[in-house]
């Protein structure tokens, strides 16, 4: 059997084919093991992970019978290097990938065949199949496959100097749900960010296909103007131009070098400078945004808003007029009980919940701890199986706040470090309890600035981890539902590579079978060695 595996030229075509299939399958499996099991060990457990990795590698290495060890080992390394090469080059679009992949393949084949004495056909078949699979399901998305299927993956280039965090704004129009984001209007990336123009694009499903297309004026009108303004820094305010049905954005500088110099010499007043800058951005940009919408022939969608401390708008045919402490409507939720219609209002140092059922009234006010401001980064999402919503605060540290029926706030959770950030709270089909999706550092590397895409569930007073996908580039996620009964899909941005990704949750158990298969392959190796040793003793 070992001779058959070792690949002598005496194998006929009929016997060679299964060996090639075995090689191809192992090449693929080795890459999956690296992405799903071995790299995560190191990323999650730091030095302990390195120890585990060495132990597994050692165990695996010695499980291979001596006669094929070198060949099997070189083949595995060559497959993994090829897979990692495909992964790295797909994340660096600046280089010309096709040429580099061909160059890498030739180099690897020559080296592996010379050093590992692997029949060339098997190696070429293995890397060929890997390349084909990569063209179909790119290796850069494999890490997500343990818990999601990737429905869409496209590049949306946006200058990070202009927009450090790519905006993702969900909208609902007659054309269906969509997520609005921005991209560079020109393909050139060498232009300084202040001289470049940007445009709005909509990520949406048309029939069965996901697309990225220019956002329609109706979609832009459905956006909250304050969300549009918040996409850019108040230090670099936006200005809009309407041209032939499209809206383009350019940025300007709000603070001159002289302003910075003055801020420095009166450094204690910087919080007031920040407030003035934000007010300046709001006044100028809001006016400009409304002007550009009018030029595009659309009116901003009516919404609940707060002006001079008064909540105004229209709710189910009733006109609202209620004095509130805050100045910003975060969103709608059911905070005191299931099916309640309540509004979360945010102020400088307080949160208020306004009930819209019956006569509108303030249900509760929470004064925020001064040392831990809330900073406008709030998420409203379902809380456990209570049918209620909680407020997920992305602060330092991040917290979960729940309101009871009597209007009393409870902080049920505060993160043990400042890096945990809530991305979305979603109840996927098949989940008993909603999944809290976060960006969270590894268990033993909380001091490192590496945050991974992680899912938790609130159970018995704790955040219990469901799974972790070892991707550090998941910077934002927006849940999107095509219809009231349809599954929730996640539209996300992968920072660094500027890719938009649409993920659909599956409930298949992928990781445990992969670990079991790896354990089985190691076990099988030792079984073969025991059998060989027995045969030798008998002889």
């Amino acid at each position, binding site marked *: 059997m070992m001779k058959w595996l070792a690949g002598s030229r005496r194998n006929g075509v009929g016997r060679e084919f299964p060996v090639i299939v075995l090689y191809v399958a192992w090449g693929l499996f080795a890459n999956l093991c690296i992405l799903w099991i071995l790299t*995560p*060990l190191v990323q999650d*457990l730091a030095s302990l992970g390195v120890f*585990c990795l060495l*132990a*597994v590698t050692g*165990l695996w290495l010695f499980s291979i019978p001596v006669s094929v060890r070198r060949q099997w080992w070189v083949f595995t390394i060559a497959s993994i290097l090829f897979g990692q090469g495909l992964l790295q080059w797909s994340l660096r679009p600046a280089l010309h990938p096709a040429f580099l992949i061909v160059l890498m393949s030739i180099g690897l084949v020559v080296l592996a065949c010379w050093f590992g004495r692997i029949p060339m056909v098997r190696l070429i078949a293995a890397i060929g199949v890997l390349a084909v699979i990569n063209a179909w399901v790119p290796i850069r998305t494999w890490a997500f496959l343990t818990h999601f299927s990737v429905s869409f993956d496209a590049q949306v280039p946006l200058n990070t*100097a202009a927009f450090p*965090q790519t905006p993702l704004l969900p909208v609902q129009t007659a054309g269906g749900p969509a997520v609005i984001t921005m991209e560079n209007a020109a393909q050139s990336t060498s232009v300084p960010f202040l001289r470049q123009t940007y445009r709005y694009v909509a990520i949406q499903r048309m029939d069965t296909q996901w697309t990225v297309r220019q956002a329609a004026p109706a979609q832009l009108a459905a956006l909250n103007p304050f969300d549009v303004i*918040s996409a850019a*820094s108040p*230090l670099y305010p936006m200005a809009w131009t309407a041209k032939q049905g499209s809206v383009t954005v350019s940025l300007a500088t709000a603070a001159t*070098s*002289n*302003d910075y*110099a*003055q801020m*420095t*010499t*009166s*450094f*204690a*007043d*910087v*919080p*007031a*400078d*920040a*407030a003035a*800058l*934000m*007010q300046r951005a*709001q006044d100028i940009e*809001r006016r400009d945004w409304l002007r550009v919408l009018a030029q595009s022939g659309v009116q901003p969608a009516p919404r609940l*808003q*707060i*002006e001079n401390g008064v909540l105004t708008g229209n709710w189910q045919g009733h006109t609202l007029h209620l004095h509130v402490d805050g100045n*910003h409507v*975060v969103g709608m939720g059911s905070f005191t009980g299931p099916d309640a219609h309540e509004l979360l209002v*945010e*102020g*400088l*140092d307080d949160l208020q919940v306004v009930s819209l059922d019956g006569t509108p009234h303030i249900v509760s006010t929470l004064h925020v701890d*001064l*040392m*831990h*401001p*809330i*900073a*406008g980064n*709030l998420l409203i999402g379902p809380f456990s199986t209570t049918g209620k919503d909680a407020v997920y605060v992305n602060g330092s540290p991040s917290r979960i706040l729940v309101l009871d029926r009597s209007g009393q706030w409870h902080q049920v*959770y505060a*993160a043990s470090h400042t890096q945990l950030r809530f991305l979305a709270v979603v109840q996927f089909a098949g989940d008993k309890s909603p999944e809290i999706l976060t960006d969270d550092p590894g268990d033993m590397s909380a001091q490192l600035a590496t945050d991974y895409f992680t899912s938790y569930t609130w159970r018995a007073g704790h955040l219990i*981890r469901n799974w972790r996908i070892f991707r550090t580039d998941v910077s934002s996620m927006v849940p999107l539902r095509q219809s009231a009964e349809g599954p929730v899909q996640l539209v996300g941005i992968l920072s660094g590579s500027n890719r938009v990704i649409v993920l659909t949750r599956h409930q298949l158990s992928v*990781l445990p079978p992969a*670990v079991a298969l790896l354990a089985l392959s*190691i*076990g099988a190796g*030792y079984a073969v*060695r025991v059998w060989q040793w027995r045969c030798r003793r008998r002889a």
Partner: protein
Amino acid sequence: MPRFAVSVRLAAVIVGCVFAVAGCEPAVNPVQSRPLQGTPALARTWQVLEQSVLLADQANTYTARYHVHMKRAGVDDWWWGKSSVQKPARMSMYVDSGRVAFAYFQSGDTAYVHDAPLWHKTTPIHSIDLFTSYLQLISRADRQHLPIERLPRQRIGNEYCQVYRATLPGQWLNPIPSWQNYRVEGAVGDVSITFYVGAQSHRLRFVETVSASTASQTGPSEVNTNIEFSGFDAPASKVTTPPSLARQLGRQIP
């Protein structure tokens, strides 16, 4: 056979361990411990702080390093910089916001800003004293007997410091003249301010603030600042004409 039995058993144990740590086991994210609590400081603390600022301000030359961080829903803004001050009227500065960086130089009533590749003349700043804004706040807090608490001492640069923390009303702060038109009442929340006074030098060494700022209709931003003063009367804090400016002008600025 026993050797193989041992290695097979060992393999099973290690593979089992790997199975357990490979993300299949639920992990609990722990809940945070209590924040740092201070003790109420003595009534004279504001005067002590005032003295520390006056003492620091007596130095002819000093250097300040500062950092500003504005955190909002979508955008994280920051800028940092370094200033050297030489009394009566010389200052050099370098500011970097990650996107824009510039150098500034002022001597008497001449000021230049380095907008690469050249230096340009600009309006000089009226007062180059970096301690004035702190002195005003401390005097006002002292007059109004604002409570202040003492925290455990900490090391800043080359010395241990006494640490004091107070909460100032946001309306005490004023934006720079160019943005005065955008000043809105109640736009700055209470400011938590922490002063670090050198235990040996008795000078103000470090100040940090945590607060929230907002516009009239947008959600608040968390604004964190810190500034460290060092190099009091040290030769390294002396302000000389930047070499590229001297080359451009063909002379040193007195």
